[in-house]
C-alpha cells in the first residue's frame, strides 16, 4: 500500500505541519491522519472547545487485510472516554483506569460540549462524566449522548453526595454513579458492571 497523508488545521496541530488536503470538520471536530504502515493509521482529533488538544488512536485500514481483531473491542478491551474540566482529576481518573489491563482511555474531554462531540466521534463503550463542567453540564451531556449512542454506558463521576444528583443521573440515562472520593475503589467496579448492561449506583 502506498503511504499517503492528509492534514487539517496545521495552525493547531504540530503533528499536521507537513500535511495537506483538508478533511471536512463536523460539529467543531477536525482531524488529520497519516498512514504509518500498511495496517494502521493514526488520527489526531481537535475540537474548537479545546486548546491545543489532540487525541490519537489506531484504526484498521479498509482493504488492508486487517480485520476487526486489530481493534480494542474485539480483544475484549473496554474503550473509555473521560470528561472533567479539572486536569488533575482527569489525570487521576486516567491513572486509575490505565492500571487496569482491560481498559483503554480513548479520549479526554474538558467540558460537556467536548464530551458529546468526542463520544459521537469515538463511540466508546463507556463514558465517565463529571457533573459540573463549563459549557454544558455532565447531565445535559449524558442526555445528548444517550440519544445518539444508546449502546454506550454512562457513568457519572461526581463530588456530589446528594441523592437528588443520583436520581438525576438515572433520569438522564446514566447506568452508574460514583463519588469522586470513592473513585479509587469503585470506578473499576462501576465500569465492569455497566458494560454488562447492569446498573451501579454506589452509596457508601
Amino acid at each position, binding site marked *: 500500500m502506498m503511504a499517503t497523508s492528509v492534514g487539517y488545521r496545521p495552525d493547531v496541530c504540530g503533528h499536521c505541519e507537513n500535511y495537506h488536503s483538508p478533511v471536512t470538520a463536523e460539529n467543531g471536530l477536525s482531524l488529520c491522519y497519516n498512514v504509518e504502515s500498511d495496517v494502521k493509521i493514526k488520527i489526531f482529533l481537535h475540537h474548537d472547545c479545546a486548546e491545543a488538544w489532540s487525541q490519537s488512536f489506531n484504526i484498521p485500514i479498509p482493504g488492508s487485510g486487517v480485520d476487526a481483531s486489530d481493534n480494542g473491542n474485539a480483544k475484549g478491551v473496554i474503550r473509555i472516554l473521560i470528561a472533567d474540566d479539572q486536569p*488533575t482529576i482527569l489525570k487521576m481518573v486516567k491513572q486509575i483506569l490505565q492500571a487496569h489491563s482491560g481498559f483503554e482511555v480513548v479520549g479526554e474531554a474538558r467540558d460537556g460540549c467536548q464530551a458529546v462531540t468526542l463520544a459521537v466521534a469515538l463511540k466508546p463503550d463507556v463514558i465517565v462524566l463529571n457533573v459540573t463542567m463549563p459549557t454544558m453540564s455532565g447531565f445535559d451531556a449524558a442526555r445528548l449522548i444517550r440519544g445518539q449512542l444508546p449502546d454506550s454506558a454512562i457513568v457519572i463521576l461526581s463530588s456530589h453526595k446528594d441523592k437528588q444528583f443520583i436520581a438525576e443521573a438515572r433520569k438522564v440515562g446514566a447506568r452508574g454513579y460514583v463519588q469522586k472520593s470513592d473513585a479509587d475503589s469503585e470506578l473499576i467496579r462501576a465500569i465492569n458492571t455497566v458494560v454488562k448492561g447492569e446498573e451501579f449506583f454506589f452509596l457508601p
Partner: protein
Amino acid sequence: MSNNAEGTTHANPETDVNAAVPGPATITLAGTVDKIFPAIGELQPEKAQIAVEGAEPLYREIRIDNSLQDGAGNAVSPEVGAEVEVTIEAKPKA
C-alpha cells in the same frame, strides 16, 4: 489600618487610632473568574470559578454561586475574565 505592597490589609495596633478596639483581621486578594458552570436545573445554580492570585497552584480556585449584588442591590453575574477581589476576614477573639 495599613496596606502592604501585596494588597494585604490588616489591623496595625501601633499606628491605628482605633487599634484599642481591634477589628477583624482581613486579607484581600485579587482574583479572576476563569470558568462559568451552567445551572443544573433546580439542583444547582450557575457557578463561577475564581482563580485567586497568590494562592498555591493546586489550591487557588474557589467556586461560588454566580450571583453577586452591586451597590444598588442589582444582581450581577460576572463572566469569564472578570476581575474580582476575594476578602478573607478573621473574627477577633472574644
